[in-house]
């Protein structure tokens, strides 16, 4: 898979405040639509993106627990916001403020997922980076993926408990100082 081949170069790419990165996936997470901004920032051709699993752009710096939370929330038919660092096909990385929602048909069945991504503020990126470093450290102590996710999740809950905020509230706290 491509994610295992691309090595992060450490070069950061950004996009403009007025731009939206948009992708749609089927219920299993395979990309069914990617807009021009996504393809440009991810350095992908449309043919390389369509039909691929969304973890095509997964960056090794992303804690497993965040994706676990993302998928659990979506399975619960709820929207989720998350700061995510993605890996472009050329090894560059880019931070996004992702808003992922389930798409429903007329009968209320989930027919896929939709992700709108906006450019986050530098402050929000710095805060998310710090948090993810803590979660990664907790996860890296466990060789088994399942244990790593559990450890990351527990650490996240601990951080939230210390701050007296829910995950949602924390994410919105970070976005409050962000660009609009």
């Amino acid at each position, binding site marked *: 898979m491509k994610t295992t081949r691309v090595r992060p170069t450490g070069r950061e790419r950004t996009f403009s*405040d*007025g*731009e*939206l990165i*948009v992708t*749609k996936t089927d219920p299993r997470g395979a990309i069914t*639509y990617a*807009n*021009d901004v996504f393809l440009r920032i991810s350095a992908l051709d*449309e043919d390389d993106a369509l039909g691929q699993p969304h973890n095509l752009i997964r960056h090794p710096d992303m804690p497993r627990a965040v994706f676990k939370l993302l998928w659990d929330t979506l399975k619960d038919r709820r*929207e989720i916001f998350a700061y995510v660092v993605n890996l472009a096909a050329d090894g560059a990385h880019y931070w996004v*403020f992702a*808003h992922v*929602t389930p*798409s429903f048909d007329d009968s209320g069945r989930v*027919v*896929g997922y*939709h992700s*709108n991504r*906006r*450019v986050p503020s530098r402050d929000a990126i710095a805060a998310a980076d710090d948090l993810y470093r803590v979660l990664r450290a907790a996860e890296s102590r466990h060789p088994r993926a399942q244990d790593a996710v559990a450890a990351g999740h527990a650490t996240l809950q601990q951080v939230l408990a210390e701050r007296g905020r829910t995950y*949602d*509230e924390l994410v*919105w*706290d970070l976005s409050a100082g962000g*660009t*609009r």
Partner: protein
Amino acid sequence: MKAKPETVDTAALDQAVRLVTDVCERALSGDLEARVPVIGGSERAARIRTAINGLLDHVDAFVREAGAASAAASEGRFHRRFLTQGLDGAYRAAAEQITHSNQVMSRTAAQFAEAARQRQALADELESAVLTVSEQVATAATEMGRSANGLADFARVAVNDAERGLGTVSSLRTSSDEIRHAVDLINQVAAQTRLLALNATIEAARAGSAGRGFGVVANEVKNLANETSSSSEQIMNQVNTVQQSAADAIAVLEAVTNRIREMSELVEGIALAVDGGQHTENAGLSQLAEVLRAEVSRFVTTIRDS
């Protein structure tokens, strides 16, 4: 320099128009999942595809934000704002209007929450105050009931004592009557003795010097009878005085007894008001305090739950 015109591939153009029309019709019917797939090879076809998909992406983003932000506001999750970033023009204006509305809702919700909090605090204070008052009233009622019962006992004892006094004084009157009878008898005896002494004096005078000594005795007997009458009269006066005093004492004792009986009724009235009648509809002070406490408790519960 003039650009070379593109060669027109009619079949590809027809297919492109069909695909775009199809997506637009699906979007028109509210299906925002549809996007134009890769069409034709021409630059113009690619541009129209990007433009239409971009339009749909923005409409899609607006619809998702509007739905989710409104839902969040209606659930009180006001931290979830409408994300205006990436939206321009009319989209952004409408988004800002929704954000403003949500902020107003947020403030209103906060005011409601504050009003509810104040209501709770008021309910707590009311409950605490009424509880204290009802406890104090209950304590006072118990104390008053005890005092009233003590007073009633006291009045009963006083009435008994007065009645005993009445009996004593009445027997005094009876004794006086007996004394009067005895004195009457003595008076009659004295009158007859005086008559006998008179006859003895007359007989002694007729006897002449022989009866002189007897005459002296008869005179002494008459004097004794007179003294007896005089003493009897004094005794009668004393007895009359005693009888008058006894009658006065009886009147006073009866008046006192009546007063105590009236007082006793008043005390019973107080006891009834405090304890409540066993066979009447009247609730006592303690019960009233309990009713007040229960009513306020019900009221406070209603306020807390509202």
